[in-house]
């Protein structure tokens, strides 16, 4: 004798739906925590930048190490990695993330300007690369990998400022216009010179020999320690 117990099927549906809804809520909560974390990093960078800016403008005697303390570079790098991760998990177009990306771009420009204005005072300041990319551009992904690799291997001497060319920020557009950013993407700007298309590690190291020197020094230090 077969029976079909509707009640049990409905109870099961309620439990299953509750688990799925809980999963959705937890996932959404963690994502909001991620956005909060990004905001905290940006606030920290903003305060550090402002502090450097004020020192530079008011005291004029701030040391180069204060102006270019590597924590700002590391924080910008960390923020860049995290924003890239948000893009890779498909949350790049979330309103919060887009706003943070815009803010991040502005922080980058500000750090870049501060770096330029201190050029005469600090000749051994970190070298800078401006990197303009676009969505759906495989070479941009490759360029991103190359620049991340170089940045990670030269944390004290290289700062990479990456800009989404499609991002609706007038300051980014102005910066792109100044440097005559155009197809084909990616574009990178080294020492005021704009290079269009994918640039290999070797070609970047050729333009910026300090990167090769640092990498070699780091490698030999590792070998010595072994």
């Amino acid at each position, binding site marked *: *004798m*077969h*029976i*079909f*117990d509707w009640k*049990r*099927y409905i*109870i*099961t*549906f309620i*439990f*299953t739906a509750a*688990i*799925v809804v*809980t*999963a*959705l809520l*937890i*996932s959404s909560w*963690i*994502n909001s925590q*991620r956005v909060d*974390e990004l905001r905290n990093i940006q606030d920290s960078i903003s305060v550090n930048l402002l502090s450097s800016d004020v020192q530079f403008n008011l005291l004029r005697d701030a040391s180069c190490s204060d102006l270019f303390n590597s924590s700002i570079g590391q924080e910008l790098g960390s923020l860049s990695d*995290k924003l890239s*991760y948000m893009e890779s*998990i498909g949350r790049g177009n979330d309103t919060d993330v887009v706003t943070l990306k815009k803010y991040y771009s502005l922080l980058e420009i500000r750090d870049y300007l501060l770096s330029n204005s201190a050029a005469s005072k600090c000749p051994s300041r970190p070298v800078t690369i401006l990197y303009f990319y676009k969505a759906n551009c*495989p070479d941009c*992904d*490759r*360029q991103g*990998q*190359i620049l991340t*690799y170089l940045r990670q291997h030269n944390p004290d001497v290289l700062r990479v400022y990456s800009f989404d060319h499609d991002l609706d920020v007038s300051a980014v557009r102005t910066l792109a216009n100044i440097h005559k950013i155009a197809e084909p993407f990616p574009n990178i700007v080294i020492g005021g010179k704009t290079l269009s298309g994918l640039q290999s*590690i070797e070609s970047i190291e050729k333009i910026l020999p300090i990167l090769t020197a640092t990498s070699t020094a780091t490698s030999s230090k590792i070998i010595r320690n072994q």
Partner: protein
Amino acid sequence: MAILFVSLYYEIFLLVTYIERRKKIHGVFSVKTRTGDDLPRVTVIVPCFNEEHTVSKTLDSLLALEYPQTKLKIVVVNDGSTDNTLKVLESYRNYPHIEILNKENGGKHTALNLALQQSNTEFVGCLDADSYARPDSLARIIMKFDRPEVMAVVPSLQVFEPKTLIQKIQKVEYVIGAFMRAILAEMNALYVTPGPFSIFRREVFEIVGYYRKAHNTEDMEMAMRMQVNGMHIASAHDAVVYTSSPRGVKTLYKQRVRWTSGFLNNARDYKHMLFNLKYGNIGMFVMPFMIVSSICVLFVITSIGYDLITMVQAWYLRYSSIGLNMFEWSWPSFNWFYIQTTPLLFCGIAAMSIVLIFIILGSRISTDNKPKVLEIVPYVCLYSFIAPLWVIKSLYNVALQKKMSWR
């Protein structure tokens, strides 16, 4: 996500049924309530085809049953074995309650039917010649027939002396299987009466007929036929029967392709049961779920394949960008920010947790077979990756009507 919802639904349904019926499931019948003259006469049929290595142990286990010899008849059918099976069987000729039949090879169902036709006891069962009954198992099974509506009883199957990794994985799988069978029995939705020691009332065969040739899974076909006839199949999860299990991936794969293809082919033969309210839980839920979950494996494999391709593409991108530098060693750093936290992950964790609950509950109800952590971990890590292999092959076989061999 839909696939995970369906899987979760199935697991939760079993769990809800367990919670609802737990007192009944855990109620252990005392084997001492019936002794001697009270016990009914039982025939146990042992079909053999080339089982020279295992059949003595099978017969010894039957001889050691805590059941009066006068109430037990053992019929061993040699189904045209080409090895020394018959010679081994001859050494059991002197036991008065063992009968040995010899016939030309015709398949397991013909061996069973030959013995069934000659049996005249109230209860009849089968024990595959690679399985071994625990001494108290038959008495525990017979207790289940105290309920008049019960027409057949299936035991709790456990892996015999698991040694290899594959056997240890199966040990955990069998514990879950024992738990699921106990629940499915409560839902009257068992779709298999396994060859190792399922016992039937004799009238089952008088009503539904004898075994049929059924895609090398006669035990599934018989259960489905009983379900069509509204017969109740119960589970005696405290009646332990050990069965030899494949030692390696290749033999396991072959066995499971036979089982899964058999299920799908039988489900096709009994398609009128699907989504038919008349057949209750088995028609409306269990059989459709089993079929849908087999097909879902295709989607899951496609999705895993897509993820793998994406991963390889990402590696290639990295390689084409920074060359061999991508292999530079760096200490992995933990940052919660980069942990995948999709709803899918949490649903997956929930589904896996329920599987662990099944293992714990299964260990509780099947008294012998407590899996160890070192057996559960490989089960969790490996089983989901090897199971799709035989499901896909079975779907392919069923789609192309391929004939399966027994071994």
